[in-house]
């Protein structure tokens, strides 16, 4: 292990067929599986409002965005499967049976079009920041290569979200109010996406899967998004938000991480419905997968 860690510290990149410690293989697998599940569940989170997207341009953009998320899930599941721990189907079944997890933000319901904007703007930005930090120094080669594409696309999503948020900021009173309500709902989940402060000796950091501590990423996000939201005339739903007179940085309230733990165990506000919807869709289409498998076995 020491030799392997020296290799990683020296910037070594691991490929699927290389020898690697089982603990590393498992850690990388769990991390990518969580990411894949989250992309897929993100697509399900957004799908409620795609048919309702206002106007042709928004509808096309929303479709393309969610298609990107599903595309990310598709790529990530394949990269995860290559690690030889679970097949794609096993990962899907584990997710739909509630045995594995996905990011906190996709356990909430999208209640309105402006919630959809908040997801694109606040949530995708938080996800992007996390992914960029992984990409920077990622020791697992296939994941790093996939992240290059994921990050490029998430960048588009975030800018699209920002454009829509600004439109609401300068739109009618109703639009501004709707956007504020959505910020009220999504601010904390977005900030929580970074997770609690990284543990000392976090193996994901040691093995160069992550490159930055959770609290560093969270703080950077807060410094960027608080001024943007205030600039749009919005209120940040945090009564203790303040600017530190010494370092001039924005400080948010202490976060109570207990509810997040429950959410991450699939006990969030919309977890049950989301997983049940996905499971029903998956089960309803089982005949398609089986029929295709059986016809694939027939010689042409």
């Amino acid at each position, binding site marked *: 292990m020491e030799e392997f860690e020296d290799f990683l510290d020296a910037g070594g990149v691991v490929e699927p067929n290389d020898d690697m410690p089982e603990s590393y293989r498992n850690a990388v697998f769990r991390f990518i599986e969580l990411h894949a599940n989250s992309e897929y569940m993100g*697509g*399900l989170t957004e*799908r409620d409002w795609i048919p309702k997207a206002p106007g042709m341009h928004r509808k096309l953009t929303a*479709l*393309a965005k969610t298609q990107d998320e599903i595309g990310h899930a598709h790529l990530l599941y394949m990269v995860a499967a290559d690690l030889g721990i679970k097949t794609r189907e096993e990962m899907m079944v584990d997710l739909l049976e509630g045995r594995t997890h996905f990011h906190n933000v996709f356990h909430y319901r999208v209640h309105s079009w402006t919630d959809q904007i908040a997801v694109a703007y606040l949530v995708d930005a938080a996800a992007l920041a996390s992914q960029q930090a992984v990409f920077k120094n990622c020791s697992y080669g296939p994941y790093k290569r996939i992240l290059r594409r994921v990050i490029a696309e998430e960048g588009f999503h975030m800018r699209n979200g920002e454009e829509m948020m600004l*439109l609401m900021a300068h739109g009618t009173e109703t639009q501004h109010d709707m956007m504020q309500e959505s910020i009220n709902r999504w601010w904390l989940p977005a900030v929580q996406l970074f997770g609690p402060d990284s543990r000392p000796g976090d193996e994901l950091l040691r093995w160069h899967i992550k490159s930055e501590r959770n609290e560093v990423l969270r703080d950077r996000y807060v410094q960027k998004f608080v001024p943007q939201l205030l600039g749009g005339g919005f209120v940040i739903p945090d009564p203790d938000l303040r600017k530190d007179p010494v370092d001039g940085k924005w400080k948010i309230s202490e976060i109570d991480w207990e509810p997040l733990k429950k959410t991450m165990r699939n006990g969030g506000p919309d977890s049950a419905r989301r997983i049940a919807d996905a499971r029903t869709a998956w089960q309803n289409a089982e*005949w398609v997968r089986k029929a*295709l498998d059986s016809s694939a076995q027939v010689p042409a």
Partner: protein
Amino acid sequence: MVPSQEAHKLVLSFADDELCVGQNHSWWIAIGPFLEEDLAFTSIAQDELGHARALYSLLSDDIDQLAYGRDHSEYRSAHITEFLCHDWSSALVRHVLHDMAEQVRWSALTNSSWTELGNTAQRALAEENFHLQHGLSLLRRLLSSDEGRKRLEPVVLELAPYGREYFADSDQELMDNGLLTVSMADQERIWVDQVLEVFDEFNITVDMSEETQGSGRSGIRSNDFATLHDEMTAVIQIDPHAQW
């Protein structure tokens, strides 16, 4: 500049068909049978909506007003495009029937005397090859299995006759001035023959002998249209004059 009232009607029918099908396909994102299919179907949904946009833009500068702002009776969509098809078998069969019809319809417009329409048709036709390849190969593979046949055959028998309505526009004037190069009757014949041939491979005999089903072209909407329209205008109607 729209050449005539008849031309306007023809393009509006086609655009409304594409709008409804694109809207309906988009319902399937993230809940298809497997991820590759999600990706493919969503691409097709985007293409169909793109066709709708291109066609509406020939008629008006305010695409959203035309696409979403009319009374139900002013739409001209064929009923088959309005059906919600929230069962994947019917979504697949409708996709195939629709794209087979589109191929015939765009082909009848590629040499149109209305140049902009002809150009739009050429671009759309290039995409149709991919849609058909996708739909037909999937359909054929599924029909080759017992379960697939059991599920798909009743849907085919029910939906296919509705497809004749795609060709229920008047065409005399359009043929006379070269706007359309294949008559509606001929287009319908080509489509019916192709549909019969595809299903004949699997000994499924579709009965196309009845009068054209549906009356979408004359402003009568199917039962599903209200749901579909409510969905597509849900946000816009909060404030139709606001920018979204």
